């Protein structure tokens, strides 16, 4: 698996997203612009200029028309992918740590930081996917996190719920229409920050990554932990691969502890685990800083990782990846085919 190294950012990466077709990659970093790349050759499609602070988050709508970004300049911006034009800016009281489009692109959620006396919130904005349309300035819903601030959030299937991961290691489920909290479950160790939530393709379950060195698959229905992947390093990101039953985890020694160790010992590797058997399958080296974000091509052809070192590494899966199966999986498949 020979990676493509994307050297477009000057500072640590914060988030990477593929579009639905998996041909475009959007990346944000602590420098102040968003980059768009062709996934198949790493050529840069363009950058989006306008933010005045470190960028924390990006998401692309399901039709690959618009991207939304959130930044430390307390704004959420909407951009036309093709032209690079900024379509809309929403102002908030504090930095925006996470944005995510609903599965039909009709709504956008934004997670705001708790700071300067403002509590952390999750805000819902209505979106019109037409680049020429006027976007509403109204916030259609505001959920305030009284207890522990939300660090990440996302939409469940059918836009029924908003799932949020909190600073204290718990996960909440909110009614996406009313904002009412339905459930709150301590998924990770107490006071171990949840760093990422990413969805399965049909958004019926999700994976959480935490500083407690583990990642967990949780189902939306009752917030039950389905699987746990234990590692030896704090995790910053996790994603679920389509087509194959794997998960990819990224992390590494905290930036603070990095100086005490060599790159070999820093564990700056993307780790592959079998989703169902919870066993580690392999690791991909390359970064020389902790991995801040991992993202997988929704079409299952490859994945990208972004590190504290400022690089994005795009990997195309090779034959070995697709051929890898456990004996029991092969048997199950054979049985199924026979059945048909």
């Amino acid at each position, binding site marked *: 698996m020979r990676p493509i190294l994307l050297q477009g950012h000057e500072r640590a990466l914060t988030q990477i997203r593929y579009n*639905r077709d998996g041909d475009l990659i959007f990346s944000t970093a602590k420098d102040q612009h968003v980059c768009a790349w062709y996934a198949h050759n790493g050529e840069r499609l363009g950058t989006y200029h306008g933010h005045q602070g470190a960028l924390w988050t990006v998401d692309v709508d*399901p*039709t690959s*028309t618009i991207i939304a970004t959130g930044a430390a300049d307390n704004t959420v911006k909407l951009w036309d992918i093709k032209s690079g034009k900024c379509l809309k800016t929403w102002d908030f009281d504090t930095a925006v740590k996470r944005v995510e489009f609903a*599965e*039909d*692109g009709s709504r956008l959620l934004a997670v705001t930081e708790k700071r300067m006396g403002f509590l952390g919130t999750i805000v819902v904005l209505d979106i019109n*996917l037409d680049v020429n349309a006027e976007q509403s300035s109204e916030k259609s819903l505001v959920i305030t996190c009284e207890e522990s601030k939300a660090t990440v959030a996302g939409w469940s*299937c*059918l836009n029924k719920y908003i799932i949020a991961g909190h600073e204290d290691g718990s996960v909440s489920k909110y009614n996406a229409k009313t904002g009412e909290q339905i459930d709150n479950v301590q998924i990770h160790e107490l006071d171990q920050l949840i760093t990422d939530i990413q969805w399965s393709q*049909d958004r*019926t*379950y999700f994976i959480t990554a935490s500083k407690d060195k583990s990642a967990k698959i949780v*189902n939306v*229905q009752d917030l039950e932990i*389905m699987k746990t992947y234990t590692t*030896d390093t704090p995790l910053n990101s996790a994603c679920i691969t389509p087509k194959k039953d794997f998960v990819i985890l990224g992390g590494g020694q905290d930036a603070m*502890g990095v100086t*005490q*160790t060599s790159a*070999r*010992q820093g564990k700056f590797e993307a780790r592959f685990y079998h989703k*169902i*058997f919870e066993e580690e399958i392999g690791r991909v080296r390359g970064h020389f800083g902790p991995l801040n974000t991992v993202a997988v091509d929704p079409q299952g052809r490859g994945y990208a990782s972004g590190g504290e070192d400022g690089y994005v590494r795009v990997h195309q899966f090779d034959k070995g990846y697709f051929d890898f199966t*456990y*004996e*029991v*999986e092969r*048997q*199950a498949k054979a049985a199924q085919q026979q059945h048909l």
Partner: protein
Amino acid sequence: MAPSFDHLPDPEEDDYDEDEELDFSDLRERYEVQLEQGLDTFVVIDGLPEVTEETRPKLIKFLLRKLNGVGKVREDSVHMPLGEDGKSHRFAFVEYATPLEAALACKTLDGVSLDKKHKMEVNKLTDIERYGREGRIDEHYTPPKLEEFTEKEHLRSWLADPSGRGRDQFAMYKDNNVLIDWNNEKDTPETIVERPNWTESFIQWSPQGTFLTSVHAQGVQLWGGPSWLRQKRFAHPFVNLVDFSPGEKYLTTWSHRPISIGEEGHPQLAAEDDGKHFVIWDIETGKPLRSFPNAEVPSAGNDEAGNPIKRKMQWPAFKWSADDKYVARLTQGQSISVYDLPTMLLVDKKVIKIEGVMEFEWAPATPRRDGVKTYEQLFCYWTPEIGSNPAKVGLMSIPSKEVVRTLNLFSVTDARLHWQSDASYLCVKVDRHSKSKKSLATSLEIFRVKEKGVPVEVVEGIKDTVVNFAWEPKGDRFVIITTAEVAAPSAVPPKTSVAFYCPEKVKGAGVGNFKHIRTYDKKNSNAIYWSPKGRFVVVATVSSQQSFELEFYDMDFEGEKPESDKDLTANLQLMNTAEHYGVTDIEWDPTGRFVATSSSVWKVPMENGFHMYDFKGEQLREEPVEKIKQFLWRPRPPTMLTKEEQKLVRKNLREYSKVFEQEDADRGASADLAVVEHRRRLLEEWMAWRHSVEQDLEDEREALGLPADPVEHLIKKTDESEDQVIEEIVEEIVEETEEIVG
């Protein structure tokens, strides 16, 4: 009455009721201050025959003979009051010169018979006052309840591994938990017991593995048996260090704080232990045998700034002879005190004066010396040059105190004493300085203890300073690590060389002269770990910041032997190398099958955990353990098989290993089967769950009138143009040549 502290009401408690006084009488009784200090020198003797005025001096004279055995008592210090009828009350008061003598009298004279009918009962006068008062003692004798005999658990049951595989156990102290595991080689260790806060500072195995020692502010506890029950307690407050005798009969504890016995006394220690630092205990009874103060270490002179150099405390300070019969302590520069056990009295009631003695070491086994009929314990010691007298190494036999052998040495800076595990050899590593005292060189003086007259052989040809030395256990080969530079403080430790030695081949039974086999240069190695069974040795770099190498050597390699080594009793081969980042501790299991390397949080802040290797250096397992502090193999007692039986086992090894290999294979297969079964179950569960969730989602979409795919219709709407395929053809000329076609 002036308001005193006792009478002040508690301000915090408003509803304090003065009438409701607590009944402290029981506490007061227990902690009553003994005011009559002046009466401490008096004892009361009961059980004397009745005497009259006339016969009284006779009895007193008779008594004095007994009493003077303890301390000086004059005739007029014995008071035997007479009643109105002119007859004595069958008791006497005796005044000793010091309270200590009085206490000793109570201890030694109580219960001594005077004649057939009369037996002395000696008590302290203060005790009579204290306990003899009305109502203090129940008039009716109630026999103490005898606890019913309960059979104790077998303390060595672990040797019969329940799985029948002869596995070894290890203890781990991590974070605040202590756990004991069976070593399962490649597989996850099987935890036998795990307890939070089992110890407060560290854990330690007894030398034969019977007990696990936990250390607390209140003292030391020993644990053992299959249920890990507490076996013994030794209440040495604020204990810091623990040392066992080799036979697990006795225990030494040390605290940097002097023992302080308060008014209320101490459950195990007595008043005479007050102010002491060391206590030697009998493990079986749990009773202290004797306590000692810290040795006054003569200052090693002053450092450059003029401050006295603090010497590091020697531990163990009390060293045990191989048979648990003697324990000895060094008073540096002066003498060695050897105590007999279990009396803990000085052998011959005298310390052994050896002028200038720097260090001593007991032989680790009882040496059977050629031409000596009685096998005594041996220790060796060395003294530096004093005036015009040369430095000396001596071997002394105990209890006869006969000096078996001495060796004079010159220009000695320092010496280290290394016994071979069977006490067959003693190697004295002598650091010598040149005449200018500027450079150091090391020589090895090897005493052949078991041979007649104890001949000494000098190993020549070592130019550098030897920083580490280790004998092969039960063998006659050794490894040294040398360094050219004198270790000056610098960031990068100097390069070292590792050298191997063995005796050369001789005809007949004897052991030939020690010869150099090979030296490996430009190493960072600083530690040598022999397999407890000999033959294999690990040379490693531990507690270093730069390198973490482990090298596994075989001294009896079964392959081809180089021609140059044909006269040697070894065939050295480097079998494997490994690396363990941050390794701080290395330990062979007691059977010599495995090597565990660990990185303790006490020394390295991160990457803590342990690695398991087999004896050939093949890594079996790597396990990160958060905040691991100690990794300790459980030692085993010496084998019960005779030499002949061991030989027989070795002879039939092939037969045995067949059985074991089959067992291993079977176990592997069944373990694999279990894993596959587990995976199959996981897969089925997941599939079933996915199936139901997908079905539910589909139903819900249908109910809401939504299309099966939430996005497809959106894309159709926005993406009206047909897919375009753009093909770009790039032509690249790789090579161009011109040819003239004729």
